[in-house]
């Protein structure tokens, strides 16, 4: 299996998109750390930008890569290799190279300018988000054979999780403002990996004091080590569920 991952890596390194992505993240982080004197502030701005761009680039790149690797996959399925292994290799190859780009592009500046526990959470969140959105991209790719449709589904997923979902949550919060919503908000957060990642990082910054009662509730639940563990556990679930479902669709599908 490591052999197949090796060839997936080769392929990704040869097209320059991942390199461009690394440079983009590097420029972004160094710029933000230099613009704002306070590293905490820089991490906050970085968090917002990372939570918007990392899912988008991960999901679009992974979807196009999957469709472009169709020939490669077709070549391999006639060989004595388990289909699930081919799929896992593709997944790990794409997700690890994007995560590597993220670690280089964001991790190095954070280590240089703002090494802190918050910085570490930002890194972990970014890596998890990469793996989650690559898994979603693969799910979108195995659902349909049509490349344009697949990319459409991927974009819709991004729109939903990055933009629409927050709107829905705000709508719910305003409509039911007279009811105690603390626990409901907690559940709503768990249903969106981007929000989950945002909260993990925010709670380690002072700004969480501005989030009112819900912020206090978050802090009391997610502020502890147990809570952080739970949050990352949920993120892990966000990787596993789309991955398992896409892998089983792929292995039951005609090529």
């Amino acid at each position, binding site marked *: 299996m490591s*052999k*197949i991952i090796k*060839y997936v890596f080769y*392929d990704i390194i*040869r*097209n320059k998109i991942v390199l461009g992505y690394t440079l983009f993240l590097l420029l972004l982080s160094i710029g933000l750390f230099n613009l704002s004197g306070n590293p905490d502030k820089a991490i906050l701005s970085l968090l917002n930008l990372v939570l918007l761009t990392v899912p988008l680039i991960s999901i679009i790149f992974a979807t196009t890569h999957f469709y472009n*690797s*169709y*020939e*490669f996959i*077709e*070549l*391999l*399925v*006639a*060989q*004595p*290799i*388990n*289909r699930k292994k081919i799929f896992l290799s593709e997944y790990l190859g794409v997700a690890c190279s994007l995560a590597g780009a993220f670690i280089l592009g964001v991790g190095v500046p954070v280590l240089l300018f703002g090494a802190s526990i918050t910085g570490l959470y930002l890194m972990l969140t970014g890596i998890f988000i990469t793996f989650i959105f690559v898994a979603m991209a693969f799910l979108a790719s195995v659902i349909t054979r049509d490349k344009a449709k697949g990319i459409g589904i991927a974009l819709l997923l991004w729109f939903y999780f990055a933009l629409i979902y927050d709107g829905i949550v705000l709508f719910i919060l305003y409509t039911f403002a007279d009811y105690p919503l603390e626990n409901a908000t907690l559940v709503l957060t768990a249903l969106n990996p981007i929000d989950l990642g945002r909260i993990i990082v925010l709670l380690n910054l002072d700004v969480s004091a501005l989030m009112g009662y819900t912020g206090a509730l978050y802090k009391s639940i997610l502020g502890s080590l147990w809570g952080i563990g739970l949050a990352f556990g949920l993120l892990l679930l966000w990787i596993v569920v789309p991955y398992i479902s896409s892998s089983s669709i792929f292995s*039951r*599908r*005609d*090529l």
Partner: protein
Amino acid sequence: MITIENLRKTYGKLQVLNDVSVSFAAGRVVSVIGPNGSGKTTLSKCILGMVLPDSGDIKIAGESILKKYAYRSQIGYMPQIGRYPENMKIRQVISMIRDIRKDVKQVDEELIGLYGLTAMYNKSMGSLSGGTKQKVSAALAFMFDPKILILDEPTAGLDPISAEILKSKILKEKKKGKLILITSHIMSEVEEVADEVMCLVDGSVKFHETIADIKAQTNEMRLSKAIAKIMNDEED
């Protein structure tokens, strides 16, 4: 060597394979013929596990191969239209497959030599003509000395000399006791290399007999006429 039992496959509403039951013995060259869209390619893809049948069973050497993958080490497959990663060079494709199949000690490079592929090693797969891609597919199919060869319209895009090279290679491998399945539309070619003919029409086996039997039954000297006769008789 291969036994297929009551194989069925539908794509949506279209019944591609309808209760196909046949068996092929080792050391034979079997030609699978039939009109376009009669299920020839689907049948070979089922044997390879690329297409999963709705019901029925496929056994190789007595063992069911459904949901397994290790058995594919015994099969060499040459697709009808070989599709390869466009940015890889011929050399990279061949060395990658060989890297994946490192367990095979004996590598057969005869076709690489006969087709002069080494001279084109640095051409990328995307820039190759259909015929050259076919040559790469053929070289890969024969490379690991498989017991079963599945060739899907092998000579369709090849020039006459290359087709001749492939035919003699097929006959040579047959002598080693291999089972070779060929789908083809060219009857003269079928007559040249095959021992048996299996005819699929609309996903069912129309007949599966040796070429000598077919000729004897129809009193025809040429296979193409004999087969045309059988097809016409059934229609009347």
